[in-house]
Every structure is written in structure tokens, then in C-alpha cells.
């Protein structure tokens, strides 16, 4: 028998990924939808002797091709005509979910409805007569509680059943007018849903604290700090271990090989390229993916957006942008990936753009190691504040150019749920694998290129070539040019290399206080590191990644020049 294709459709936050995970278990794989930044999850399943391919469509509220997700869902159903579309409906918000259901039926899809989260609906005092709903819509309706695996088997049986008796049905027609359509939906819901008054639900009780005007913010700060700690402490430890292992390995290579110039070159360019990728991105990426998935699946993410919307609006974004920007303080890579939670590609891009300018942990090493160590905490704090100001202003200005269709915050506030850890771990594994395939070649190639330049002694020429900028405009020593180029690989290397080049870690001997400030400002803005550029390429394509890179180089030089002139004019240092 031929392979069956089943597509999963539904609103965001209805437990679609949980159903997907229940169905496909370990045999999943992830890619991108052609030409889109949205991830495509697919999996295989063998059910009572039938080979079935499951495609997890992105969560949408409708099929009007307003967002990438909607376009993908609509096109897939229209063009690839899956044998069955399982529409996962939130039993606790039946009325809202049915809007999409009607649109799916109008596309002539073979629909089976999974009436999910009946437990949550019950808690809200809503009981739904599945048989009645099935009769009214003319398609099978299967009650499920996906998180507990309840009803999943029945869902598959029903799905395979309807492919067997596929008869030519007349195309379904529903009222075209939206208000009428909602009235129609309302009449359906009225016939099959019984509502009883209940006390305050768990979600309501939690929200009264978590969205409270003071307690809510305190909790938010606590969660963010925990997340920060979790991602970066864990990342740091893993990153350190990986470095140690590589170092140990290198120690044990016989000296006659390790002192060989060619060996050193290959080691530096290939192995250290991989190490850079492994230590910069992966250790932070894994905990990040896990934490973000927990925030998303538990239903807390929309609450964060709710709390921070007012602030983000001033930057031309809305509440959801807060998370990636905050993550930027740790590492720009997860920050850029986190921009996926924004609705439109424009907003994703603007958020990522701004996130790359937030000083990541590596840049904090420069800020604290140079300015903080030699000029004091006040100046370091000043640099951070200056950065926030610049990012804020740029957001304010850039949003006017980048955002052509502003989308305000509209989102549903789902009930809180216990996240399914095994599903999250599985998804994280897939996403990290996908990341390695795309980003690693770029990281390794650029490491190779810079080391080749170094090997043939070209770095000096480049720093001489750059001296009109480094010396002329910024008033820095010419040698800084080299550190800036190497900083492209890993920002904190700029400091390490600077120390090596000038032969001392006491920078006050070689740099004036003003030069330290300028060096730090330039390092903070001048270019995203190789791993970040690789991520930008993966998420937004070459063109936009180049745009961000060039823009930030120009911005860094401009800000550095202005800072150098202004500070020396005022004469505070």
C-alpha cells in the first residue's frame, strides 16, 4: 500500500507539537519550508501495517496567507493535498478554534478533528458532545488529551478509516461574511457545548499573581535571571570542558609534530574553527532551546509579552520582542534564533538586528576586562547604558524603515500547561543538529580564512591598510586593527590577542583611558561574530546578513569616532 500523508493543523498553543511527538516518537526530522524561515517538522509512523508520513504544519488562526505560517499551511493543503488533515482543536476555546476548521473544510481537505485538552475544558466548566459536533460538521471528531496520550490511537484509527471510504463530497460552503460566519460557529458551539459555572480556574489564579502589576514583574525578573543563569552558567561550564578536552588532546601530540608549521596552521584553522563553533554556540544553544520551549509550552511566553509590551512598543516592536533582546546579553546566536517568535519576517529581522548589537557575554569580557578593570565600574556601567540608548534609538529609527506593515500585539492567552519534557528534548536535539549543518561550515571557513591570512603574514598589511580608520578616525594604535579582525571569530579573543600583541595585560601601559573607551565601543558594535553571522544567514539569507554586518561596521566606526572626538573635547578623561 502506498504511504499516507497526514498533516497536522491547528491554532498555536493547542498542543499540536505534543500530538506530533506522540505520533512520531523518535523518527522525526526537521528542515525549513522552502524559501521560508519557518521550521518544518516531519516524522514517520507505522500504524497497523500502514506507512504514514506526518507533517506538522505551523500553528495558525486562519488561512488567509497573512503570515508565512498561514501561507505555508494553505499552500501545503492546496497543492500537496495530504490524504488527511488532522485539525487539532482546543476544546477549551472551541469557538475560536472552529474558524480555522471551517476554512480547512472549504479547502476540500479530508478533515479529522482532534478535540484536544478536554481536561482543560472541563476545568473551565465546558463539556463538549463530540458526536454532536461530528454530526454538525460532517467529519469525525475524536476527544483527546495529548499530554497523557489519551485518544491518540483512536485518532489514527478514525483517520485511516476515512481514507478507506473516500467519497466525492460536495464542496462545503459556509457563510462568507465574517460576522455571519461567527454566528454560524456560535450556533454550532451552542448545540454541542454544555457550560457549567465553575470557580476560578488554575490559570486564573496563577494569572492573578503572574500578571499582577508588581508581583508579575518580580516573577518575570526572577524567571529571566534564572534563564540567564541556566543558559550561561551551564554554557560556560560545558564550554570550558570542551576547551580542556581539546587542550589535553593537543598536549599529548608529540612535539616534533606539534611544532611543525603546517600542523599548527591546520590545527588553528580547522580544529580551532570547530572548537570555536562548539564552544561559542552549542553549549549556549542547547539550554536556550530547552528553556525557550518550556516558556512556550507552559504558556508563560504570552504573559511575558503582556508584561513588556508597553516598553517594546517604543522601539517599533511589541512585547514578544523582549525575550530575544534580553537573550542578546548572553549570546547573539540564540537571540537571533529566538526572533522566530515574532509574527512577520520584518519584525523578526528588526528584532534580530537589534539583538546583535546588545553586548553578549564575550563583549562583556571586553567591557569589564578593559574599561571596568582600568577605569572603574562607573565607566563600564556607562558603556552598558550608552549601548541601551543606542539600541533603543536605532529601534525607534529602523522600525520606520524596516516595518512596512506594523502588527500590534494580538495573541491568545492560553491556559497554563505542564510542558512535556521528552518532547522538548527531542525537538531540541533536532534543532541543534539542523543548526550545526548550516552554521558550522561558515564558522570553519572563516576561521580558516583568517588563519590563512595570519599564516602568510597578511594581517599586518590589513592592519596597515585599516590604519586610516583605526589611527586616523578612532585615534587607536595601528595594532588594534588585527585584534578587531580576529574578534570576528570570537569577540573576547580581541582582548586576549591585544594582550599578546602588546605583550602585557596591563592595558593602561599601552592605551590611554580614552583609547580604552573607544576600543570598547567599537568592539561592542563593530561586527557580529562569525557564529552570529552564520545564524543570520540561516535565518534571513545572505543579503540581510551582509546588510547587518556592513551597517554595524559603519555604525561602530561612526560611534567610535564621535566618542573619541566628544570625550576629548569635553576633556573628562
Amino acid at each position: 500500500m502506498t504511504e499516507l500523508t497526514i498533516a497536522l493543523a491547528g491554532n498555536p498553543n493547542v498542543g499540536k507539537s505534543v500530538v506530533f511527538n506522540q505520533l512520531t516518537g523518535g523518527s522525526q526530522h526537521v528542515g525549513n519550508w522552502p524559501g521560508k524561515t519557518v521550521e518544518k517538522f516531519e516524522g514517520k509512523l507505522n500504524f497497523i501495517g500502514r506507512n504514514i508520513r506526518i507533517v506538522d504544519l505551523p500553528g495558525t488562526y486562519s488561512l488567509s496567507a497573512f503570515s508565512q505560517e498561514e501561507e505555508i499551511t494553505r499552500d501545503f493543503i492546496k497543492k500537496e493535498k495530504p490524504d488527511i488533515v488532522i485539525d487539532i482543536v482546543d476544546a477549551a476555546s472551541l469557538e475560536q478554534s472552529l474558524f480555522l476548521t471551517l476554512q480547512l473544510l472549504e479547502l476540500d481537505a479530508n478533515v479529522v478533528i482532534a478535540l484536544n485538552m478536554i481536561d482543560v475544558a472541563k476545568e473551565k466548566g465546558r463539556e463538549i458532545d463530540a458526536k454532536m459536533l461530528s454530526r454538525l460538521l460532517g467529519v469525525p471528531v475524536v476527544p483527546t488529551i495529548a499530554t497523557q496520550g489519551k485518544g491518540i490511537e483512536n485518532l489514527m484509527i478514525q483517520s485511516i478509516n476515512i481514507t478507506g471510504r473516500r467519497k466525492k463530497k460536495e464542496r462545503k460552503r459556509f457563510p462568507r461574511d465574517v460576522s455571519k460566519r461567527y454566528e454560524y460557529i456560535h450556533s454550532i458551539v451552542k448545540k454541542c457545548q454544555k457550560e457549567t459555572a465553575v470557580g476560578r480556574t488554575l490559570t486564573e489564579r496563577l494569572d492573578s499573581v503572574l500578571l499582577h502589576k508588581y508581583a508579575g514583574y518580580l516573577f518575570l525578573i526572577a524567571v529571566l535571571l534564572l534563564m540567564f543563569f541556566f543558559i550561561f552558567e551551564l554554557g560556560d561550564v560545558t564550554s570550558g570542558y570542551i576547551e580542556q578536552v581539546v587542550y589535553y588532546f593537543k598536549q599529548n601530540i608529540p612535539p616534533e609534530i606539534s611544532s611543525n608549521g603546517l600542523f599548527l596552521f591546520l590545527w588553528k584553522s580547522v580544529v580551532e574553527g570547530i572548537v570555536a563553533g562548539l564552544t561559542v554556540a552549542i553549549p549556549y544553544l542547547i539550554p536556550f532551546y530547552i528553556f525557550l520551549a518550556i516558556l512556550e509550552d507552559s504558556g508563560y511566553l504570552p504573559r511575558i509579552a503582556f508584561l513588556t509590551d508597553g516598553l517594546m512598543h517604543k522601539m517599533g516592536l511589541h512585547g514578544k520582542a523582549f525575550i530575544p533582546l534580553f537573550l542578546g546579553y548572553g549570546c547573539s546566536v540564540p537571540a537571533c534564533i529566538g526572533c522566530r517568535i515574532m509574527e512577520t519576517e520584518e519584525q523578526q529581522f528588526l528584532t534580530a538586528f537589534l539583538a546583535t548589537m546588545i553586548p553578549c557575554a564575550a563583549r562583556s569580557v571586553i567591557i569589564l576586562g578593559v574599561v571596568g578593570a582600568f577605569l572603574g565600574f562607573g565607566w563600564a556601567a556607562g558603556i552598558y547604558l550608552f549601548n541601551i540608548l543606542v539600541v533603543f534609538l536605532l529601534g525607534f529609527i529602523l522600525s520606520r524603515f524596516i516595518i512596512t506593515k506594523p502588527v500590534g500585539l494580538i495573541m491568545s492567552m492560553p491556559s497554563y500547561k505542564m510542558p512535556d519534557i521528552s518532547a522538548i528534548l527531542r525537538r531540541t536535539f533536532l534543532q541543534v543538529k539542523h543548526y550545526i549543518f548550516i552554521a558550522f561550515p561558515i564558522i570553519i571557513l572563516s576561521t580558516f580564512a583568517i588563519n590563512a591570512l595570519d599564516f602568510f603574514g597578511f594581517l599586518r598589511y590589513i592592519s596597515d591598510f585599516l590604519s586610516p580608520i583605526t589611527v586616523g578616525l578612532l585615534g587607536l594604535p595601528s595594532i588594534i586593527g588585527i585584534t578587531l579582525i580576529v574578534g570576528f571569530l570570537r569577540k573576547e579573543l580581541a582582548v586576549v590577542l591585544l594582550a599578546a600583541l602588546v605583550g602585557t595585560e596591563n592595558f593602561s601601559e599601552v592605551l590611554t583611558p580614552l583609547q580604552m573607551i573607544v576600543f570598547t565601543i567599537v568592539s561592542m558594535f563593530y561586527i557580529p561574530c562569525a557564529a552570529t553571522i552564520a545564524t543570520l544567514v540561516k535565518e534571513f539569507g545572505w543579503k540581510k546578513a551582509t546588510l547587518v554586518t556592513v551597517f554595524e561596521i559603519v555604525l561602530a566606526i561612526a560611534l567610535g569616532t564621535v566618542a573619541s572626538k566628544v570625550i576629548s573635547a569635553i576633556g573628562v578623561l
Partner: protein
Amino acid sequence: MVLEKKEIEEYLEIMYRKKQKGEEITTTGIADELSVSPASVSEMFKKLEKRGFVKLVPYKGVTLTKKGEEAGKSILRKHHLLEDFLTLFGLGRRRAHAEACALEHALSKEGEKVFERAMKGAKGKNAKSLCSLRAGQKGRILYITGGMAARRRMIELGLPPGTVVKVLRISQYGCPIELLVRGTEIAIGRGIAEKIYVEVIE
């Protein structure tokens, strides 16, 4: 000449709608929508190109120029204004749509302003921006002003005019606000809430 102006506007409106949806403007697509032959569509495309409204894409169709986009946008705006106006005063959505289709071509810029003012006046009496409601209050949506994109989004999330919403919670800075709509909790930002006008019913 008069007939031609109406035809041109009708084309521009449809093309602009398609562009907004991100669809390509093809000869057959337009022909289907207007129930005319592809031949007359391509003839019209040539006329439109001469006037600088579109650029021809060989074997495919056309793309709108800046000028064409502006013109399409303006006619669509008039359409929505008229449709909202007629609905506000009691005409059914469908009827209002049909009438707006006919009237939009006759409405001048000045006329548009008059309608806008009249709308504001009529709405002023009992219509309040959703932002001004207190937590716990209920309101019925009268109309939604503003951009197409946000409007469509609201409709899809279940907020077309006529919908009863209950304000559950207002964030510390006034907005976003959390609403109960058709048994579902949704949050909307200030920018959108300001564009939704409601009459308070409870």
C-alpha cells in the same frame, strides 16, 4: 471615459488586494475574479501600463508600480469607509459591501473627508475606544478603524464588529489589555485597542 475610470479603479483595487495577500497578479487570476476573458484583461493591462499604474511581466501578468499601489490603496480605503459607514447605520455587511463597490468610484477626496467626519460624529455619541474601558466592563464592538492588516487579524481572532468582549485585565501601563472573547482569553496591544470602538453594555 467615465466607464473606463470605473473599470481602471476596479482593476487597481483587485490588484492591490492581491498584492496585500502576497499573491501574484496574473492575467488568468484577474480574468477569473472579474469574470471576463483573459484577452480583455491583457488589453487592460496594456492600458494600465501606458498610464504608469503597472509594469508588465512577460507571460505572467503584471506588478503594481508605486503609483498603481497608491491608487489601489486609496480606492480600497474608500471602499472600507463606505462599507463601514453603511454598516454603522444598519445595512447588512453583504449589502453594504455591494453598495460600497458601486459608490467608491464616485467618491472624491473631499467627499471622503465628509464621510469620515460624519462617521466620527455618529460614532462619538456612545462609541468609546476599547482602551478606555475598565477591567470587568463589557462592550460590543461597533467598528474598527485603521489598517487592513490589523483589521483582518482581529477578524480572524474573532473580533469582527458586533462581537461582545469583556475586559479581564489591563496591564499597568494602560495597555495591553486582556479580553474574554467567545470563551477565549486574548491579549491585544494599545495600538490595536485604540482602533477598536465599542459601546459599553455592562
